[in-house]
């Protein structure tokens, strides 16, 4: 091997010192035998590098004699706890049934923990709502229908004839559509298609309708105008000996 200069020797002094140290267990891979020999011969001839080797050796000795820090008891205890817990996990992983049971228990616990924050507010809310309802229920108008003569106000009732005119009708049967206003008066009437009364019949129909009284149609309790189809039939009207009229 070619002769080394001081810089390259000092570059390898640490590895050289490791080789020369009796306590070192480092393998021979860091320095070849040729390198070791070359450095050795250089150190024999160079006093400065030899002093550097002494300093490197003293530094290495310093490193080796650095105090070994004892592990604090608290850390040791924590390590024991970690080991115990991890061993339990490892045992669970090796036993699928136990693992499933453990996961189920963990899920149940997580579910319970999830619900716990809501338990007090939910219970309080339910109780307060029951209390408020019991206080308000006293004032609610919830009486049931107990009156027979009560008129339903939400339905539509048809117009009806309250009283028929005392005049008779001598013609054939006629069908008319009568319009009765909200006050119960006949507002109009129309012949139905296919019927064509004679002028005499027309006058009789007018008299019959005008002198009849009607009950107007009701919607939501209020009288309204409405239409209805009426059939006027032939009527005979007799007066008995007492002066009372009778229909045949």
């Amino acid at each position, binding site marked *: 091997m070619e002769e080394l200069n001081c810089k390259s020797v000092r570059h390898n002094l640490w590895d050289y010192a490791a080789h020369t140290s009796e306590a070192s267990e480092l393998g021979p891979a860091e320095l070849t035998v040729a390198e070791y020999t070359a450095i050795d011969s250089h150190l024999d001839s160079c006093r400065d590098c030899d002093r550097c080797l002494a300093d490197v050796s003293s530094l290495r000795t310093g490193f080796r004699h650095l105090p070994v820090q004892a592990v604090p008891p608290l850390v040791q205890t924590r390590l024991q706890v970690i080991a115990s817990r991890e*061993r339990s996990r490892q045992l669970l992983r090796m036993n699928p049934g136990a693992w499933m049971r453990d996961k189920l228990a963990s899920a149940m616990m997580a579910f319970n923990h999830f619900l716990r924050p809501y338990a007090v507010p939910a219970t309080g809310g339910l109780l307060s709502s029951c209390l408020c309802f019991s206080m308000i229920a006293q004032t609610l108008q919830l009486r049931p229908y107990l009156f027979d003569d009560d008129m339903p106000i939400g339905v539509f009732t048809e117009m009806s004839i309250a009283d028929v005119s005392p005049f008779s009708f001598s013609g054939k049967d006629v069908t008319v559509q009568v319009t009765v206003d909200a006050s119960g008066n006949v507002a109009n009437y129309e012949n139905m298609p296919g019927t064509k009364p004679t002028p005499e019949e027309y006058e009789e129909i007018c008299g019959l309708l005008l002198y009849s009284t009607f009950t107007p149609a009701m919607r939501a309790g209020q009288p309204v105008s409405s239409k209805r189809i009426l059939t006027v039939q032939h009527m005979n009207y007799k007066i008995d000996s007492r002066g009372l009229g009778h229909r045949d």
Partner: protein
Amino acid sequence: MADYSLNLNASLTSEQQAALEDHALISALQRAEAGAYETLIRRFQAPVYNLAWRLLDNPADAGDVVQEVFLKVFRNVNSFRGDSSLRTWIYRIAVNEAHNKRRWLFRHRKGETGIEDVFPGDDNREAPLVDAGETPFDFTMNREAQLLLEEGLAAISPAFRAALVLREIEELSYEEIANILDISMGTVKSRIVRGREALRCYLANRLNPAGAIDLAPAPVKWGLETGNLK
């Protein structure tokens, strides 16, 4: 307590025997044997704690790192393929955890003042193991040298420090360090050389602040003439 040290064949090298012991220990851990956990903790808690302590220079943070390291080891023992030795694997986790811890501290502990800073006289480090046979003068000198060396280690770059600690204190080979730090062998050597140089400069400045130190060929000033570290 279970003993996972094997003595199967006297012809086995120490490395082969260590590999067999590691394999037995890993198998026992995968079977969740109680003694295996105890053995692993007993074997590695002190080295991991000291490594973390050197990398972070804080005993409390080192304790946190040790817990994280063992937690990861226990949880990932089933996925350990045995490509490296058990020690290399655990050290790699420790170095990564220390790196993460340092980054976390850098982000979250700016401006934070610990109680130990309020009472500077209290040294909460654990008592070092010292030779009771040395004289008080030797003890003082050694202690001074140790503190100086620790200060120097704490002062250099974390990347260089990790490589230097693994090499000089943990006495790992370049290949193991490359595995632990997940870098190439050339980078390992470069970091170690630069770490040594940074440490040398720091010590030289501390011991002889007046003059700078030349790498070559002038003799170093922090050596025997100015104060031997030994």
